């Protein structure tokens, strides 16, 4: 994915707006995650990890290295609250790679101007649903795998993976519909 330096620099106003939106989104998501969702723990099994929505919703034009850095920093921030240094960072790094691969496979690069962000309102339900399912499953799988760090409790780990993934995907879709902006696609 080549850097689109020209676009990145030219539209400075648009860019600063994107940055502000993403910073706010980051703060809100981290707060929701550590102060609300961390306490939701159904039968010690399902905990939604909604904060990955921040990485999912980064603009398409974000350079790879920035995606990785942001994913890593997000993971570390969550780790700081969860007292698991490195765990969420590792899972988020996997998530960043999957995001880059998934987008490079499914989205045409020349459509970036019209479709700046991978949101539900811009990309449509079908694409967004697939996107969230694939990325959430990857993130959660690696998160729980790293957390368990062995194959002894694989059933328990897979159970957590399934329930938490459903929970997370549900929340993501809800938030997608909440911030749905009707926008005619060109």
């Amino acid at each position, binding site marked *: 994915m080549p850097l689109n330096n020209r676009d990145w620099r030219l539209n400075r106003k648009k860019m600063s707006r994107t940055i502000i939106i993403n910073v706010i989104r980051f703060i809100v998501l981290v707060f929701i995650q550590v102060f609300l969702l961390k306490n939701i723990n159904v039968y010690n099994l399902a905990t939604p990890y909604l904060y990955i929505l921040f990485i999912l919703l980064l603009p398409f034009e974000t350079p790879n290295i920035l995606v990785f850095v942001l994913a890593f920093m997000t993971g570390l921030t969550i780790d700081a609250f969860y007292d698991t*240094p490195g765990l969420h960072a590792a899972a988020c790094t996997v998530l*960043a790679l999957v995001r880059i691969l998934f987008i490079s496979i499914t989205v045409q690069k020349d459509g970036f101007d019209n479709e700046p962000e991978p949101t539900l309102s811009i990309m449509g339900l079908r694409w967004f649903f697939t996107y969230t399912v694939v990325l959430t499953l990857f993130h959660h799988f690696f998160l729980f795998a790293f957390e368990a760090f062995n194959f002894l409790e694989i059933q328990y780990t897979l159970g957590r993976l399934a329930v938490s993934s459903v929970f997370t995907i549900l929340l993501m879709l809800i938030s997608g519909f909440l911030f749905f902006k009707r926008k005619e696609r060109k």
Partner: protein
Amino acid sequence: MRNLREFIRKYNAFFLFLIFEVFSLIIYVKYNSFQKATFITSSNEVTGGLYARVSDLYKYLSLKSVNDSLAAENARLRNQLKSSFYVDSVTKHKVVDTIYKQQYEYIVAKVINNSINSPKNYITINKGSQQGVAVGDGVMCNLGIVGKVINVSAHFAVVQSLLHKDSRFSAILANNKELGYIEWGDDLDPHKGLLNDVSNNAQPKIGEQVVTSGHSLFPEGIPIGKISNLHTKAGGFSLNMEVTLAVDFSKLEYVNVVSNKLAAEQSGLEAQQKKDE
């Protein structure tokens, strides 16, 4: 070089992924003790096994010093036992502080020469008069009595083993306190002793413990052995019985020399009585 650069640029996502993933996993493994432990134990099964073997070897090499320290500690603990103190009832009324005065003292010694095959067996130990060993002191090990000191030099002492046809020690049955004396059995078996001169009204049972009486060299209650056979010799006025000795004399390594601080006083008094008669 240019191709390499192209290659890296083309797959930069993958390389970035590698860098960040390795970095976060390093943080993860380094700062989380559970994962650290799991990672180390699971990935180091081989080296772990090797380390266990090497440490076994090292332990084996240091057995000697460990033994020394344990034996020293045993002696120290025996010095603190209640049975090695004697109740000073005269001062008891006057001085509340000192109820106990030490009567028995233990000196740890190593067996440097030992025999069990002849009718007269002697043990040489590496402590002598300089360390406080005196002729007539009792010798015991953690399992039971061993013998008594019959000769001392500055640094060594010769112990007349219980496995000696002249050895006799005062003994009692642990349950009913019936008095007798223990000596070596007739058939030169290093595991068998004879308990003689037990009163006819005693009703000893097989397996009953035989311990020291406290009348002579040893404190009361040091184990000697267990009764293994009740009818060895027709005793007439007294019962004789066979005793399996608690101490395995063939494996003696460390012994404690017991010096009764009041032995001289006791024997002097008894001698006086005999003379008077």
